[in-house]
Structures are given as C-alpha cells and as structure tokens.
C-alpha cells in the first residue's frame, strides 16, 4: 500500500500526486517511470516520475484524467492509498553536459520534463524550455519551468497563450545553436518536433510511454519500431531517438484498446466502481 501524501488539482482534470515511496524516491532518476495499480481489480498503468523528495520519502507524478483508471485516481484524496506501486522502471534519461539543450514539454508531461531540466542544469547545460498545452487553461508547471530554464517559451495548439503551435521552433532553431533536443509529451507533438528538427540534424530524444502491462520487459505490449528494429519501450527506453521512431505505428498501437477504454470509462462514470 502506498499513501497519497498530497494530491493537488493543477488545472481541471490534471492532478499532481505525491506518493509515499521511500525506496523509489532514493533510487529514481529523471526519465524513469512507475507502474501503479489502484486496487485489486485495477489495471497496471505507467506514469513518468516528475520528481522525488528523498527526505520526505515521496515521489511525484502528474496525471491527466483521460479514462477510468486516471479518473479513479483523480477521485482519491490526501491520505488515501493505492494498492501497488512498482519502480523505478526504464532507463534514466541521458543527462550530461551537452551545451545548450532545448527541452520541449507538452500537456501533463511538462511535469516530468521539469525533473529532467533541473538535472540538465545541474550538469552545466544552458536550457531553453518550451511548455505547451492544448489551450491556455490546460498549461501546467509554467512557473516551475521558468524558474529552472535559462529562457522559456510558451505555446498552445489554439494560440490562446504564447505561440500558436510549434512552427516557431524552426525559427528559434535557426537563431540559436542547440546541441540536443528533448521532447516529452503527446505522441503527435513529439512527432512534430522530431520532423521540425530533422533538417538540422540535431539529436532529438523523445520519451515513449505506450500501452504497457508489466513494465519490465515481459509482455511486449509496448513494442515500438525504432530504426527498423522492434524495441520494448519499458526496458529499452522510454527514451529513443525521435528521428528513428515509427510514430505512425505507435499511434495505431496506442489506440488498440480505445473501444474497451471508452466502455470502461462510461460504465465507471455511470455506475461507479461496481457493475
């Protein structure tokens, strides 16, 4: 059992959780994730770790309510418990001195990106940050990112705040020498960034969290094609070279259970837990 030390709604339907998980907190590195299961009948879902407090013995995750499990998680309060928490899983992000790193985060994934940015700064990099969301009132961690980035840009899909879309990255790139790009967010966004950066030939790292079950290499649900080879995102990743990822296949595989996910969500919303 893992207790929720703090739960905070950042914006509508996006929640931050601090879970009591002393041992994970002591071991986690930016880029890694946990698998959690809310209760006995729950599914195992992967969530990228957005921070850890070794002294408090807690880890932070931020999660968007998009289906039954995340909605149920969102219904929990401070002091409530979840049944299972496994981690840290996956390989840590490659953090060392690259020079100037462009870190682009979208949606809830801005929170785990923030964890990486702090590490990039500590390693002596200049960090240019970009935070994005669908629309202005869905933006999270803007202030937190501003505090740790050398400069920060804001973008929204609908242009309600900052740049509209990510096309400005092309110009930004021409002006600024960048040694590495890190894109963490929705698949479409990571694909767009990878394509925008491709002509410049700069390594672009994306963080892939596809459908997973065990999260430790046993099932292969999370397989992605990278450079023509099948990889397991859970153990070979979650970070991959965005210029090598078959995003189309990934998008298709992410939708594999969409009808069931919808069904479970509707049942849950209508009837609560039991059927």
């Amino acid at each position: 059992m893992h207790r929720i030390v703090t739960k905070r709604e950042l914006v509508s339907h996006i929640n931050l959780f601090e879970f009591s998980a002393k041992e994970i907190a002591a071991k986690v590195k930016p880029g890694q994730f946990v698998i959690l299961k809310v209760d006995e009948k729950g599914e195992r879902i992967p969530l990228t770790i957005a921070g850890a407090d070794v002294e408090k013995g807690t880890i932070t995750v931020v999660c968007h309510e998009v289906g039954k499990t995340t909605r149920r998680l969102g219904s929990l309060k401070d002091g409530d418990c979840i049944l299972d928490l496994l981690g840290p899983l996956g390989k840590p992000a490659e953090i060392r001195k690259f020079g100037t790193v462009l870190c682009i985060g979208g949606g809830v994934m801005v929170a785990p990106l923030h964890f990486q940015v702090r590490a990039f700064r500590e390693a002596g990099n200049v960090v240019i940050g970009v935070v994005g969301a669908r629309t202005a009132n869905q933006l999270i961690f803007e202030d937190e990112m501003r505090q740790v980035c050398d400069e920060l840009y804001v973008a929204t899909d609908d242009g309600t705040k900052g740049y509209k879309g990510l096309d400005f990255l092309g110009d930004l790139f021409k002006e600024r020498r960048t040694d590495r790009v890190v894109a963490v967010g929705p698949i479409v966004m990571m694909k767009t960034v990878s394509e925008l950066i491709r002509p410049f030939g700069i390594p672009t790292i994306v963080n892939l969290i596809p459908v997973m079950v065990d999260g430790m290499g046993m099932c292969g649900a999370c397989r992605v094609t990278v450079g023509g080879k099948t990889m397991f995102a859970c153990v070979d990743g979650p970070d991959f070279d965005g210029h090598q990822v078959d995003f189309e296949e990934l998008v298709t595989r992410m939708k594999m259970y969409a009808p069931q996910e919808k069904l479970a969500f509707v049942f849950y919303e209508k009837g609560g837990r039991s059927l």
Partner: protein
Amino acid sequence: MSKPKAKIRKEVVPMPKQDPKQRSRNFNEVALGYTEEQAVSEAERCLQCGEAQCVKGCPVEVDIPAFINLIRERRFGEAIRKVKEKNSLPAVCGRVCPQEEQCQANCTLGKVGDPVSVGRLERFVADWEREQGYEISQKSTSTGMKVAVVGAGPAGLTAAAELAKLGHEVVVFEALHKPGGVLIYGIPEFRLPKKIVEAEAEYIGKLGVAIKMNVMVGKLYTLKELLERFDAVFLGTGAGLPLFMRVPGENLCGVYSANEFLIRVNLMKAYAFPEYDTPICVGERVAVVGGGNVAMDAARCALRLGAREVKIVYRRSHEEMPARAEEIENAEEEGIIFEFLTNPKRFIGNERGWVKAMECIRMCLGEPDESGRRRPVPIEGSDFMMDEDTVVIAIGRSPNPVIQQTTEGLQVTKWGTIVTDENGKTNIEGVYAGGDIVTGEATVISAMGAGKKAARAIHEYLMNKK
C-alpha cells in the same frame, strides 16, 4: 511393506472432467479431482515396489510409495505431510507436473498397464489438506542467518520454503504484484486455479517467509545492495521475456506475445473485463503459433474468450510437440484445430493497422537438430494465406536480463542464463541461482528441484560461514 494380495487393476481410475462443450466457454478448472473413494481405489493399484523407480523420476524426490500407501490406508493428513517433507507446492505440482515423463514414466505397473496416477493422488491429498486447513510443522530454531530470494516463482518459493524450514530468516522479493511467477501470470485458471497458487504462497508465508511484492531487484536494489543486507541470495528470476518471430507485420494490432496474452488473462483477469479493468482483444479467428504448453494455454484461453475458431500453428508435426499429451488432448477435445508443418512468414494488416491475415509456408521434416527433434524445412512455393484477426506468438521465452545487466562480474552464458555449478552456486560468493534463469525455459518442477538443491547448498554455505 506388504504387497496387496488382490489382482491389480491395469486401468487407471479416470478423473472426472468438465464436459468439453461446457468448459470451452468458462474459466473454471477442467479436471475436477478425485473423490476420497477414487483416490483410495487408485492408491490400491500401487505395487509398493521395494526399490521404487518412481522416486528416481521426481526432481524433488517425493517418497511416492509411502504417501500413496498412506492414502490407501485413508491416512490423508499423514499422506500430505509425507509429500510436504519434499515438496512445498503439492497442489500445483499435482496439476501441472509432466508426471508422464517423470515419476509415472518409471512406474513398474506402466509396463503392463496404466502407470499409477501419482499426480492425481498428489493433487488429491493437497486439496484435501487445503479444505481441512493447513497444519504447520514445527519450525527449526533460528540460525540468525538472513537469505534474500529474488523471484516468487516455483524456484524461489521452493528455495524460500526449504530455507525457512532450516531456520533461516527469508525474504522473497517479487517484481509483480502477486506471488507465484509463471503459476500466477502464465498458467490459466482452468488448469491451475489462482486461489490454489494463493493458498500455497500463503502456506509458505506461514513457514515464516516474508514475501515482498513490487520490488524489482536490479532496479530498486542491486544484487550488491542485497548482499550487504543478507548473508546469501538466491536468484530465481525465471525466463520471462517473450520471443518474437521477427517477421514483417509482427507489430500490427491484434498480434500478441503469449506472455502478454496470458498476463492479461491470468494475472489481470481480462476475462472478467470490465469488472476488472484490464482489457483484451480476441477476434473471431485466432491463430496461436507454437506447440508447447504455453501455446495450448493461449489457444484454450482464446476459445474461452469467445473466439469462433482457434488454430494451433506449429512448424513441426504432432510427435514433436513439446506440450504435455494431456494438454494436447484437452485442446483437441475442446475443438482447437491443429495446423502442423506450417510456419508464418509475415502478417498482413488492414487499413486500420490490425492483423487480418497470415502468410504461411508448409514445412517438411529433415534431419534431427541439436534438440534431437527433426528440423523443419520450408517447402519452396507452398506459401498460402490464413485469415486471422488475432495472432498469439508462443514460440518461447528467454531469461530475464535485469540482474545480469546490473551486476558486474556475474558470470552469464551467451544465451543470458546465469552460470552455476550443479548445486546452483554462481561465481559470486553467497549468490546462488536456479530454475529457468539457469536452464532456460523448462518446467515448474525442474525449477522447484533447482530451488531445493540450491537451498541445501545455501544452508551448507551459511553453516560453514557461522
């Protein structure tokens, strides 16, 4: 021991099973187990040989004639205690051991008729005990030594039970959220009900073993860190990585590894979706590629999940199938179709990225290969299409690599298995290993045998250290 005077019946007492028509649509256990009368009647067939050959076929050396004799005398409590002297998971072994290749293959009675059904009798006494409530034998005095066991599968649980009985303090670390390893995630409910695995794990807990879930050694702690906290470590991490065919189209939606398919169904109970949250997609036509027990399990699960037609696609012929005869027979009875001497070449998807067909090639059998089985050779020009909307790849599993990758200096083979001596000792002092992580994918009982051997070696090591 006195031999029974009456003429020995040559035929085994049949075990009641669920009707194939009915059972192919539910997840309840197929084999229903002996009644007391049936068990006693089967036990009476045992010749009580002076030099029992059956025991030599048992990887954990259960005193088979002795426990069968106790059943014959209706002393069931003593019978299960006799089994448990050597075997900590009898209800599991009675169900999933390949007895026909082990104890029963050596049975003297087998030369003139059916061998005594040791497995069914073992299952009977184990189930009898579970219904009565477990009796815990006296624990040995504490040795003050601490042992970590990595992996709560058959090897790890057996090693843990043996070490606890010898008075060591044992902590088992399991990466999944439930103990049992392949018993809980791999073998389906209808062959091994999960409440039985839970009960056996609970029994091991009562022996004083602490089982900690959701701990992935190699990630949360390294092996080196465990060695700082424990006097010895047993690694029973198993063979849990799925092998794929590496042919085009394998990442289409609807193509599963057997591991994913079975983990969803067994561990996550996807058959009870949406009461349980984990979904599974099973279409009308399912092809399972492979010929082992895992392939049979996946095929029979698919049928129970509502598939109209389920095929086993195997590149060799019936004789070479590694699955147990009993499981093949069960699958046949339930209406699984077998396509022998057939191998997929690629998978073809529809416009939405879902598998719709499988291009296959016919095979013939050539010279025997290193496994001793005749090597399948493709027949040029025999390609044909099979329409399938779900495919399960059940061609084997490879060793879990995390501990090997995160432990400097641990000796490993080119297949990724851990190198040990015959007692499970690795090249690192105080570290032992056993089961699939050493042998590659094998049986539950051979893993248990390895766990037991290693436990003895660990005990000896600790006593000398003391």
